[in-house]
């Protein structure tokens, strides 16, 4: 284990390492743009080069690579050599996973630490505790790309019904905490629509899309100006080849200028209205309706152009160029057709 608490002794001063010939990084040249290494780091990597040269794979290599990894978790060669050593000396992998847990929490934004977990999990074949550990890491950073893609890897790679079973409630919890967390929305899409070919949530595609449309519309109603939710709505429709026009009645509620505070509230579960605090019109709704009109062909085009113009000139001026392109493009396509 690492000498976290004790004073670090250089490898050059450890008698049990005296048989290894350390190799400095650069011999005979004055490198350009060098890094000013700390003495500990230089010492450990000099010995690492010495070990790589002789090809030694032994218990002490685990100690050396751990030292390097703790100083620089992105040292992929140390990780690689460590993995090979673990396999060659048939080291037990459970304690390695425990150590990797600590390293993961210390450096969750490092590619190598997550990949090392994958190598270990592939060998250990016990994925269930991994989801709990993953959730723990997400608590510290709910948008860490590596954490999420790793979770998706665990689900897809092992593809077991028990693994998938808890995912929808899990991701719903995260979206309840922050409805704008796009990583969570992507995970929801992954779970609902890309859930492997044997495991999955065990439901039909129709059932999934009905549930997901209701879910996302509820979240749009809560906070309409949320690009993640609108992308999800579009994604669900595209994935299941449903035309956008099927949602026009819902989306129309979000292109008006203001929330109608006096309107009688008719509970329409299919088309939940915007919350009282909603800032309308919602530009994603305008864009959505423009797409609905464009899909109608020649008849719809002038309505679509009107909406795109309002985006270009009023509601989404930073993307003026894009909306103008959409107008030119749609007009060119309809006149040819």
């Amino acid at each position: 284990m690492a000498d976290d608490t004790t004073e670090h002794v250089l490898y050059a001063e450890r008698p049990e390492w005296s048989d290894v010939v350390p190799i400095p990084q650069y011999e005979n040249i004055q490198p350009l743009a060098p890094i000013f290494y700390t003495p500990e780091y230089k010492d450990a990597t000099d010995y690492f080069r010495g070990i790589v040269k002789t090809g030694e794979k032994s218990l002490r290599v685990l100690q050396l690579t751990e030292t390097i990894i703790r100083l620089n978790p992105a040292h992929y060669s140390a990780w690689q050599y460590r993995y090979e050593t673990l396999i060659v000396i048939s080291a037990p992998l459970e304690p390695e996973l425990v150590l990797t847990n600590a390293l993961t929490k210390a450096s969750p934004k490092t590619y190598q630490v997550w990949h090392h977990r994958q190598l270990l999990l592939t060998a250990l074949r016990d994925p269930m505790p991994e989801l709990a550990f993953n959730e723990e890491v997400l608590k510290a950073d709910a948008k860490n790309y590596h954490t999420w893609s790793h979770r998706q890897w665990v689900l897809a790679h092992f593809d077991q019904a028990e693994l998938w079973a808890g995912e929808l409630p899990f991701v719903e919890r995260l979206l309840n905490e922050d409805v704008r967390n796009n990583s969570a929305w992507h995970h929801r899409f992954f779970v609902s629509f890309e859930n492997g070919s044997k495991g999955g949530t065990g439901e039909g595609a129709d059932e999934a899309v009905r549930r997901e449309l209701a879910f996302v519309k509820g979240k749009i109603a809560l906070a309409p100006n949320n690009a993640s939710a609108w992308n999800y709505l579009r994604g669900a429709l595209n994935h299941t080849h449903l035309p956008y026009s099927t949602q026009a009645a819902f989306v129309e509620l979000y292109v008006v200028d203001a929330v109608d505070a006096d309107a009688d509230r008719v509970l329409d579960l299919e088309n939940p209205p915007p919350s009282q605090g909603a800032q309308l019109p919602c530009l994603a709704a305008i864009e959505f309706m423009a797409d609905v009109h464009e899909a109608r062909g020649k008849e719809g085009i002038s309505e679509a152009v009107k909406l795109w113009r309002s985006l270009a000139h009023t509601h989404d001026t930073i993307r003026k160029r894009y909306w103008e392109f959409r107008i030119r493009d749609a007009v060119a396509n309809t006149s040819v057709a």
Partner: protein
Amino acid sequence: MSRPTPIDAYPTATSNLQADTENILQDHVPLEGGGGGCVLHKNRHLELLVRNLAQGFPARYVSQDASQPWLMFWTLQSFSALQIAIDPDTKQRAIDTIMQWQHPDGGFGGGSGQAAHLLPTYAAVCSLAIVGRHGPGGGWDQIDRCVMRLYRFDLYPMRRRDKLYKWYLSLKQPDGSFIVSNHGEVDVRGIYCLLVVALILDIMTPELVNGTPAFIASCQTYEGGFSSASHPHIFDGILAAQRPSLGEAHGGYTFCALASWVLLQPYISAGEDAPRVDVRRLLRWLVNMQGLEIELGGFKGRTNKLVDGCYSWWVGGAFALLEALGVSPHVPAPASAHEGETAKPAESGWNDADDSFFNRHALQEFILFAGQHPAGGLRDKPPKNPDAYHTAYCISGLSAAQHRVYPSPARREVVRAAWEGEDGVRAAAFAEALCWTEEDGGSYIVGSAANRVNATHPLFNLTITHAEGIMAHFYKQTVPKRPPKPSH
């Protein structure tokens, strides 16, 4: 005053962070008539770059010890973009340093004695495109040639490039992807880096990239951008059609996937089951990464995340690549159709003189106002410190916003006509790579003309001159001279 991002009276962690960032960014807008705000502080940035190159990087860069070729590339490419030539002695030291990173079994490692890895291999080869040359000690022929001293026991001495090719093949996976190193992970950054090097060094073959386009296509997510990788479900040796994307759409991965897709075009055979990318959905995602006026029009890397200077290149630089796929902002508008569409409405503030998919003016302002650190170097955004990575990609992004570089059919013809040897996919790939041309009169520079940085090749992030030089060498071709540009 610009409008804040609407929060619908429903604050969450994301909207709180967003609001804080908007406030900080607004503090960096120079006061009206204050002057100075629109200046690219080239000298300050150069001082930092020179210090890093000549003296070295401080100890906090130990975290990048396995990315030394990247530190080199970011620094050298920043010089190139800032129009600074490097003296012969420094070039030679750079070459000698880079060659220390070459692995005896092919490829380059992140430092001397480190394992070969796809990412540093790109950074090393692109660095050699900038500082290398043919001839002894020039780097280029050292990638190419067998070193007899090391391989005297080999019966058939292999050239280094053959080793590189064999190493590449050893990384290939059944789903068409590549792992980044022995026992390493798969992601589209590695594939982009592999494809660029294979193309530049003339070792690209249909065999090498068989199945790779389908892998890239499978990384497109429902949002339109690309994720880091996809998961292959393989049953009884057969790859299932559905390959779920691992991770959400992300600016860095999207650039790498899109550039890979463009590089692979000569190797994709048409047909019913040819892999497809939804370019319209990709365009929509890309434009939506541009932050609002209140965010100074910088780019973000994911939906509902914050703007960050490096995405000026990863996202801002991606638009040019769409042109290679036939998606251009220059759609001919029929004269008879809707009135007024072709006329450019007069408007103050943003410049309307260009046709592009994104707001080039705003992106330049973001980099000038928020990207520059007062002490030199560029950054993610205030109050962060500058670093080598953000310096390079803010400058590259500034270049992408200033210039229009497009695949020129005329240039493609000229390059193809000058091709010597067998006409085939190799000749086509060479011409596709070198047809990219800076549009005359297509530049739009915020601030004074002194803010100009060099145009950069949209696929490689090298200057076009450097890309031509190294490719001409490895393909043993003469690239026809370009017509002289009007002086600026």
